[in-house]
């Protein structure tokens, strides 16, 4: 009888490992979009403190998922292009981290990396290089996401009234 929870745990563990391959910035964007897509409209529609007309609520509720889809689409497209560009530069040896260079010189590698590489120094150096590059990509990705905010909102503000107008029956 104890097999079911172990399987559930394992499925959750596998999903976690797969999801974590995406990197921090993309994960943050997925979670933000999920909140806007699924939770924000419900909070708008069923907020007990709000005394708005049903039509007003529906319009505002529709705005959230439309904005979530457009934002996430723009973020993923631009982040993928940015990450590809950074990877290409790294392959050409144009991105060098001091932490990696110091590790090559001194042999001092952060403990978690060394443990993951099972104390194989060459593998640990490759893993350290990959980790540094992933963190670098995340930070540059955040700046790009912030820069995208203004054009993305402008686009979604143009698109969503058309969708809301089509979906909401206006009694006014």
């Amino acid at each position, binding site marked *: 009888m104890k097999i079911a929870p172990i399987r559930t745990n394992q499925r*959750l563990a596998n999903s976690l490992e797969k999801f974590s391959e995406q990197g921090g910035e993309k*994960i943050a964007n997925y979670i933000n979009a*999920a909140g806007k897509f699924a939770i924000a409209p419900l909070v*708008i529609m069923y*907020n007990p403190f709000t005394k708005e007309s049903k039509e007003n609520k529906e*319009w505002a509720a529709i705005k959230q998922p439309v904005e979530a889809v457009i934002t996430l689409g723009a973020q993923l497209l631009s982040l993928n292009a940015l990450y590809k560009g950074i990877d290409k530069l790294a392959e050409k040896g144009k991105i060098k981290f*001091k932490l990696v260079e110091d590790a090559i010189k001194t042999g001092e590698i952060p403990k978690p990396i060394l443990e993951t590489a099972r104390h194989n120094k060459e593998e640990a150096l490759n893993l350290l290089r990959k980790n540094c590059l992933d*963190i670098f990509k995340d930070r540059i990705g955040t700046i790009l996401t912030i820069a995208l905010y203004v054009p993305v909102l402008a686009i979604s503000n143009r698109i969503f009234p058309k969708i809301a107008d089509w979906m909401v029956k206006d009694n006014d």
Partner: protein
Amino acid sequence: MTNIISPITQSKFFNNHLKRVINDDAFAAKTIVVCSVMKDVFAYSVRYKTTMENKKIPEKRRPFVAAMDLASGIVTAIAQIAVGFSIASPKIQNKLWNGLFKNAQFKDIAIAKKSFATILALIGSGLITERIIVPLLATPFATFMEKKFFNGAHIPAVTTSHNNLSKPASMQQFLKSSAG
């Protein structure tokens, strides 16, 4: 391009940051929470500027409406950081990890633990706090402020949070107030 990248990747500050993110899972999760909140802070700043320039709001009320935008932005950011940082703390992480993955097998447990901390901190701050708690609390708070400072007079558009539905002067104002 290398001229722009090298000063960053060779800087002491960025390499210390890399070292901490690699060595400390809680710090890694907290950094992503801060990055996520930074995006919201930028959005609130844009909203503040838009409100100050909105000529449909009477001039004498504009500073208060804009101040409410700013205040709600600051409150949301602080709440998100408080919740995100609490969830990212090693004590809570260990409890949740042991509860969920006691018998599970991982290809790389170190990476999985780091991602788990990040994902949970983001769910707590960006999903539960930002999308449920703050919007629900913002509406009665806006009503309270309106009564206190305007004796129940109508405010054209008090924009208090991402999902807040306050008192719009028109459909356009109303939709602006729920932007996020």
